[in-house]
C-alpha cells in the first residue's frame, strides 16, 4: 500500500473518531502540568500505593542504617546513584541512573520510578485529566526497568538465563514474583511492598532443603525452586549457610555457604545457587552416621562475630530445617 494513503486513511479515521467524541462527549480538560517536588504529594491521591511503598525497602534506600554505615553516611558519594536516583525514565530504561540533588531522604521513590521526561507519570492507563497526567507506558512493566539498579550484580541477566524468561505458561518476570497483583486481582493494581530478602516467607519459597542417606552416608540437597535468579542474589552482603549437627548437640557445624563475595575477597569464589540448580553435599564425618539435624540459614551481613565458631541461631535467620535418622 502507498504510505501516503495509509497516512490519509489514518487521518480520516482519527478525525471522525475525534468528531464523534467532540460531539457526544466533550473530553475533560487536560490537567495543568504539575511539577512534583516530593513523593509525599502522591500520597494525597494514592494513599494505598504510598503506604505499601513506605513499608518497602525502596523507601528506606537512603535512611537504611546498613547502607549508611557502609557508605560512611554517603560521604562515599558513589553510593548515591541508586539509593537516591534521578528518574529512571530520564536516563532511560536499562541505562544507569544518576544521583539526584533533592529529597534524597525519599530514596527510591514514586518519582524515581514513575516520572517521565515530559513531566507526566508513567502508568498503565492514559488519563490526561488526572492531576498527575498518567500515560500508559509499557516499559514500566519491563524487566529492563529494574536493570538500572538491579543488574550491577547481574540479577536481570541471571533471570534471562532462567526458564522463567522463556515465553509460555512458566513465564514469570520480576513483577510476577516481587510485585504481584493485590489480592491476585489485576484490576486492583500491583503491590508496591516489593518483598525481597527481608521477607522470610519469600526466602523460604526460594529454596528446598532435602536430606537423605546414600550408601549409609548423609547427603544434603538444596534446590533453587522459587527464585527467578541466583539464591541469594544481588546485594553481596547477603549469605546463606548450610549447617548440620548430630541430634542432641547444641553447636552447629558449618557445611556450605551460598554467596557472591565482595570484590576485595579475591580468595573466595562465587557460590550463589542459580535458578533451578541443585547443590548436593555429602557430610563426610563419622558423626553423621547417627541421627542428625540439617539447617539452612539466611544472613544480611556476611561476617560472624566468631568466625571459627559461628552461631547461626543468634546471627542469622532459619529458612529450613530437616532431620535424618541413622
Amino acid at each position, binding site marked *: 500500500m502507498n504510505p501516503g494513503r495509509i497516512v490519509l486513511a489514518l487521518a480520516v479515521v482519527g478525525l471522525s473518531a475525534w468528531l464523534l467524541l467532540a460531539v457526544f462527549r466533550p473530553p475533560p480538560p487536560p490537567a495543568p502540568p504539575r511539577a512534583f*517536588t516530593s513523593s509525599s504529594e502522591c500520597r494525597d491521591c494514592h494513599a494505598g500505593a504510598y503506604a505499601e511503598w513506605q513499608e518497602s525497602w525502596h523507601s528506606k534506600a537512603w535512611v537504611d542504617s546498613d547502607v*549508611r554505615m557502609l557508605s560512611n*553516611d554517603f560521604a562515599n558519594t558513589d553510593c548515591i546513584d541508586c539509593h537516591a536516583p534521578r528518574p529512571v525514565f530520564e536516563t532511560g530504561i536499562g541505562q544507569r541512573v544518576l544521583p*539526584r540533588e*533533592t529529597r*534524597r531522604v525519599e530514596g527510591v521513590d514514586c518519582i524515581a520510578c514513575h516520572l517521565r521526561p515530559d513531566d507526566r507519570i508513567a502508568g498503565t492507563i492514559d488519563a490526561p485529566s488526572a492531576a498527575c497526567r498518567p500515560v500508559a507506558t509499557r516499559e514500566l512493566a519491563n524487566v529492563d526497568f529494574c536493570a538500572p539498579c538491579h543488574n550491577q550484580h547481574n540479577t536481570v541477566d541471571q533471570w534471562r538465563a532462567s526458564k522463567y524468561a522463556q515465553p509460555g505458561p512458566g513465564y514469570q518476570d520480576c513483577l510476577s514474583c516481587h510485585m504481584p497483583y493485590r489480592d491476585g486481582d489485576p484490576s486492583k493494581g500491583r503491590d508496591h511492598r516489593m518483598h525481597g530478602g527481608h521477607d522470610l516467607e519469600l526466602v523460604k519459597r526460594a529454596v528446598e532443603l532435602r536430606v537423605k542417606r546414600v550408601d549409609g552416608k548423609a547427603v544434603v540437597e538444596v534446590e533453587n525452586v522459587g527464585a527467578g535468579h541466583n539464591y541469594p542474589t544481588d546485594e553481596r552482603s547477603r549469605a546463606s549457610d548450610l549447617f548440620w549437627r548430630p541430634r542432641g548437640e547444641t553447636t552447629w557445624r558449618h557445611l556450605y555457604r551460598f554467596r557472591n563475595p565482595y570484590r576485595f575477597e579475591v580468595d573466595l569464589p562465587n557460590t550463589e545457587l542459580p535458578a533451578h540448580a541443585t547443590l548436593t553435599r555429602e557430610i563426610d564425618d563419622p558423626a553423621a552416621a547417627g541421627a542428625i539435624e540439617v539447617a539452612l540459614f539466611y544472613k544480611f551481613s556476611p561476617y560472624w562475630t566468631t568466625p571459627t565458631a559461628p552461631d547461626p541461631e543468634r546471627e542469622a535467620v532459619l529458612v529450613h530445617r530437616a532431620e535424618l535418622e541413622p
Partner: protein
Amino acid sequence: MRRLASVWLFVAACAPASEPAPAPYTLEPVVVRELSTLEAALAREPASPRPAGPPLELSEARDLLGAVVGSEGKLRLAALDDLKQLGERVVPALRAELVATDDDPALRAAAVEALAEIASPSAIEALLERLERARREPDPEPWMRAHCAWRLPLAKADWAADRLLLALKYETDYETVIWLARSLEASGSLAGVVGLDVIARGPDAERAAEATSVLQAWADARQLAGPAELIAAYHGGEFVAREEPTPPSVRARLRTWTRIQSLSEWQLRGVDDARFVLVQSGPSAVDALAKALHDENRYVRVHAAQVLERMGPRARAAVDPLIDALRERELAPPAARALGRIGEARARRALAAELDAARRFELRVAAARALADLGAEGEEGALQPLLDPATPLDLRNAAASALLSVRGFDDAGAELALIAAAIEANAAEAPPYEATVERWLARVGEPAAELRTRWAELASDPERPRKRAELLAALAQPRT
C-alpha cells in the same frame, strides 16, 4: 525532511538580527576524538629497539640476578647494567620471577630493580601488574608490592602515576601505601597525603610514626608547620602549579583520557576507579575534564562535573567551562555543585541566576546549595524570597543555608530556625546542614563562642542531630 531543514535555515537567516543568541551548548564525541589523536601521536613515537636475540630462560635470568645480589658497589652496578642492556629479551623472565616462590626472595627484589632500570613499557607494565596482584588473587608476599612501589620512580614514566593512584584505593598493606605516596610525591603529586594521614592515626605504631615523619618532611620542604597544614594546603589547591612540572607525555595523556572514557562504562567498578584516579590527578586532568564537559555521552559529561566537584579548589582552572555548563540540562546541577565546592567567588552571579523560578527544581536547589558552599555575598536579593513558606522544602532549606553564609550572629534567626527544623526532621540529612552551621560559627567569631563550645561537645553524642537542632532553635527563638 532535509528540505524542511533548509527552509528553516533560510528563514532563520533572513530574520532580523536582534539580540545575538548565545551559541547552543555543543555536545561532541570529545573523548573519541582525543583518544584517536593521542593514539596516532603515540604511533609516531620512535618504537623501542627490537630485542637482538631470543628471550632468556628463567634460569639464565636468575644467574644474572644472582650476580646482582652477590656483589656490591661497582660490580653490582655492572651486573645490573648487564640486565639493562638485555632489555626486552629479559623482561619475560623477570616478570615470571616476580611471582616465583621457589627461590631466594633477594632475587625477586633484584628483578624489581632490574625491570625499573630497563624502564620499557613492558617492563613497567610487569611491575604495575605485580603491584596490583592482591586485587586478582591472594598475594603471599605483600612486601613485593611495597618493593615495586618503591622502585617504580627509577623508570621515570609519568604514565605509571595513573596506576599508582589507583593502587592507593585498593592497597591494604601500610608499607606499600607509604611507598606509593612517596613515589607519587617524587613525581610531583601529593595525592598520597590522605592515605598517610589514615596510617598516621592508625593502630600500627611503627607505621604511624613513619607516615607522620614523611608528612612532616613534606611540610618542612614547603615551609608549612606540620601534617595538618600540609593536608589542608593540598586540598586547598595550593600546590597545583607545582604538580606535573613538565608537560605530560603522550602516554600519560592517553591514560587520563582512557579514564575519562571509563566514566561511561556500565559496570560501576570501572567508573568508581576512574573517578578515584581522576580526582587525585593533576592540572592536565583538570583541563581534560573541562573539555569532557562537552562530550556527547551523558555519563562522561555528568561524571566529569562530579569529579571536578570532588577535586574542589584544585579544579580552579575549570571554573569558566563549568559556568558555561550550567546551560546544559543534565550537566547543570552537578556543574553548580562543582562551582560551589571549587570556591571561586566569580561563579556567584551565574549561580544566583539559576535560582530563577523558570529553572528546573533540581537545578535551583543545586544552585542554592552551591551558594551556601561558596558564600552568598551580594546575592541575598535572589535568595531572600525563597524563604517563603510556599517554597518547596528542599529549596527553602538550601536558601536558608546560603543566606546563613552572609548573616551575622544577631540577624540569622529565620535561617537558623529553618536549619534547625531540617536537622530535627531528618537526622540522615543532617551532616551538610551541620557543616553549614559550623562555617557560620567560625565566621561570626566571638559572639558565638559559647554556642561553639556546646555544639562541639555534642559531636559524638548519640542524639547529636536532635540536640543540635534544639540548640539552634533556642538561638533562633528570641529573634524570629
